[in-house]
């Protein structure tokens, strides 16, 4: 198992994302003798070993099932318990594309946060690339470092505990294989910090002078953008542009086709039932009403009758009052899309800028 590529068969020690439902993906490290317990069933790790990634696995006593998924940065992001705000795939995919991050890229990220974007960067740059990620907050740094190690994301990724605003990005001893000509030489920079306008002042010494460098600052408030843009201008960055990414998810649903002809039939049915009711009433009434008007008088609900057989069967074209399952073949349906129930209306503003090598 690796975030750098797929394998087919699950072995002991592998990370498996147990897909329970759309909103519940549980990361587990497969270990003999252990068991995954959930209210959707119980699953022995022993049985997972030797199964294929992607396979559906039944629970103990044929109770419930899960799918055994191979980790990917995107599935991992969904599975994450939200320790902090996450850079979601709509944003991260666009940032990667726009900064032209690809195999072999040298990337600077601060802060690491949940390390969700870190995974995505590491996957994209591959083993030829290098990712320098900084995290100020110690518990989060430790958590992220442990996670990156567990996930085998150490060959191309170096995590550092550092406040880049105060202490900059420079490192005295860059581990072997990570430096380029003794330096970081970043080609792409991603700043998810409360005050990126301070951090940008510290970038000069860690970005490459060999090619154009792209940068993205990720800030929730518009006033942060304002300060960042000014700082970037002062520092000589160009082509500054802020954008928002608006991401939405839609699901396929079915909506019942309710025809007006059925409505009319139903109203007629009610009318005729009522009339039969009235006739029943007449039969058991010494003073039957004289006028035709009564037959369609709907102001009063008809009294309950004991002679049930007089009531014809209720016409029920849309399953009214009963619980109809979506797509029930006794009804007509129209295909529709329904938006997710909670929309992410705002993640952050993305401010992009570029630094040309001084020639």
């Amino acid at each position, binding site marked *: 198992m690796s975030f750098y590529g797929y394998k087919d068969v699950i072995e002991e020690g592998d990370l498996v994302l147990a897909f329970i439902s759309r909103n519940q993906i549980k990361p587990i490290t497969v270990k003999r003798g252990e068991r995954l317990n959930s209210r959707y069933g119980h699953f022995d790790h022993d049985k997972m070993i030797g199964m294929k990634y992607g396979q559906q696995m039944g629970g103990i006593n044929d109770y419930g099932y899960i799918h055994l998924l191979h980790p990917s940065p995107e599935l991992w992001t969904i599975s994450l318990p939200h320790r902090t705000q996450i850079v979601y795939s709509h944003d991260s995919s666009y940032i990667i594309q726009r900064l032209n991050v690809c195999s072999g890229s040298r990337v600077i990220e601060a802060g690491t946060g949940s390390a969700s974007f870190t995974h995505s960067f590491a996957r994209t740059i591959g083993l030829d690339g290098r990712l320098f990620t900084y995290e100020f907050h110690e518990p989060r740094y430790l958590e992220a470092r442990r996670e990156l190690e567990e996930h085998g994301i150490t060959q191309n990724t170096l995590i550092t505990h550092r406040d880049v605003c105060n202490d900059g990005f420079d490192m005295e001893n860059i581990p072997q294989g990570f430096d380029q000509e003794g330096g970081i030489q970043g080609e792409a920079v991603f700043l998810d910090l409360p005050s990126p306008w301070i951090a940008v002042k510290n970038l000069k010494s860690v970005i490459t002078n060999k090619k154009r460098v792209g940068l993205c600052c990720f800030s929730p408030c518009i006033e942060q953008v304002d300060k960042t843009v000014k700082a970037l201008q002062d520092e000589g960055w160009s082509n500054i542009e802020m954008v928002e990414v608006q991401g939405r998810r839609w699901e396929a649903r079915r909506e019942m086709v309710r*025809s007006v002809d059925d409505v009319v039939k139903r109203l007629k049915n009610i009318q005729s039932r009522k009339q039969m009711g009235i006739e029943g009433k007449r039969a058991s009434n010494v003073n039957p009403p004289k006028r035709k008007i009564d037959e369609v008088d709907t102001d009063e609900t008809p009294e309950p009758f004991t002679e049930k057989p007089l009531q014809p069967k209720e016409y029920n074209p849309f399953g009214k009052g009963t619980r109809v399952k979506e797509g029930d073949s006794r009804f007509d349906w129209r295909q529709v899309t329904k938006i997710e129930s909670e929309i992410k209306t705002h993640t952050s503003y993305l401010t992009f800028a570029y630094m040309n090598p001084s020639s």
Partner: protein
Amino acid sequence: CKSTSHISPDQHVVLRLPSEGIKIIELRNSGLISLGKFGCFEVSGILGYPFGQTFEIIEDNKVKPIRSMTDQTVDIPEEEETEQEINKDTLTQLFTNSAENNQNIINIGSKIQKLTSEEIDKIKKSGASSDAGQKIIEQIIAGHGGFDKKTIYSQQKYLKRKQQKFLKRFSVEYLGGSQLLEYSILRDLQKVLDMSEESMALLMTYGNVRPGGNYLLIDETGGVLLYAMMERMQGQGTITIIHENEHPNIIALRYSDYPIELQERMVKTINWLQVVEPENEKIIWEDLPGEEVDSMKSNKKVQYYRRQKRANDINSVIDSVSRGNFDALISVSSLDMTGVLPYLIPKIGGSRPIVLYNQFKEVLLDIQHYLSNDKRVLAPSIYESRVRPYQTIPGRLHPMMTSRGYGGYVLWGTKVIPVEGGLTAVGRG
């Protein structure tokens, strides 16, 4: 008539609670109103204040007026102010200190909240007044080691949660169409077919709703749209509702406080059977000779007049729909419009709007395709309107992070009268 300006008895009003929940209640001249965990208050204490007023429950079910749910600069004696003016300012300051920071957030939860529930109870008891809630929040913030290290997002959520729990404040608003819709959305979004305020607004604007208009309406929102149209029209004009059951579901009118005469003058109802088979459904009625009526016994006479009115009402609405020339067709319905429109398009006057709401764009797509073969509806298009609210704190502006997914779509076209046999378009590619 009902008041649109001041809190008055015998009228339904909106109570807005700190939880962002809202309630609709009918006020009397007196009596206690309970807000559940937020406390109780005596109605007479709020009467006469203008709509929009915020109150705080103090001792003995009394209320005092305050400036707003989060602000206390008005209506408070000078000396109290410094201590009281915490909420909004504290909030803003805290936001500033936290600097939209997700840097220092640890696993914040109940464990780092230093106040125990016993302490909270103690404060509650010690403070005789409603300020207890406010004070508790302050102390919780003070006692909450990681508070200024939380992200703005979680701070917001945290404070809201705390406010909901402790503040005994509420405001009283006029029950307009928007408020009734908001109430319905919070109660059961599906009951108003996912319709947002902006979609309802678009419906009424494209439907050219105004005083004096005569509208044909299908309304599956339980009358919420009807209510909003009546607000716009203020008693002038008519709305004819086509319904599919024995009785129309216009339950929202129970909140309207309009006099029955006004309701009867404005709102006509007709069911689909009466629309589809008007001649069959008309009621055969002939007035009896005056002397015969005069000679009736009292209860028979009442019955006679009741039947006479009913027959007249039904026949008159059937006649009115048969005549047509309505000023708009407005529909919020889950019925299949391709079956509905053949009956209703002829009822709309020339150059008047046809506006159809649906929760799903795909349904309107079907309708637009259907209409493209019907030359009686000009240029139908599908419109979407989405309002995006911001956190409106100066220096901390950003769109709200999440919202519920709903809103719906509106199809708008214009009823026209094509030349028989058709004309050929030229130069239109």
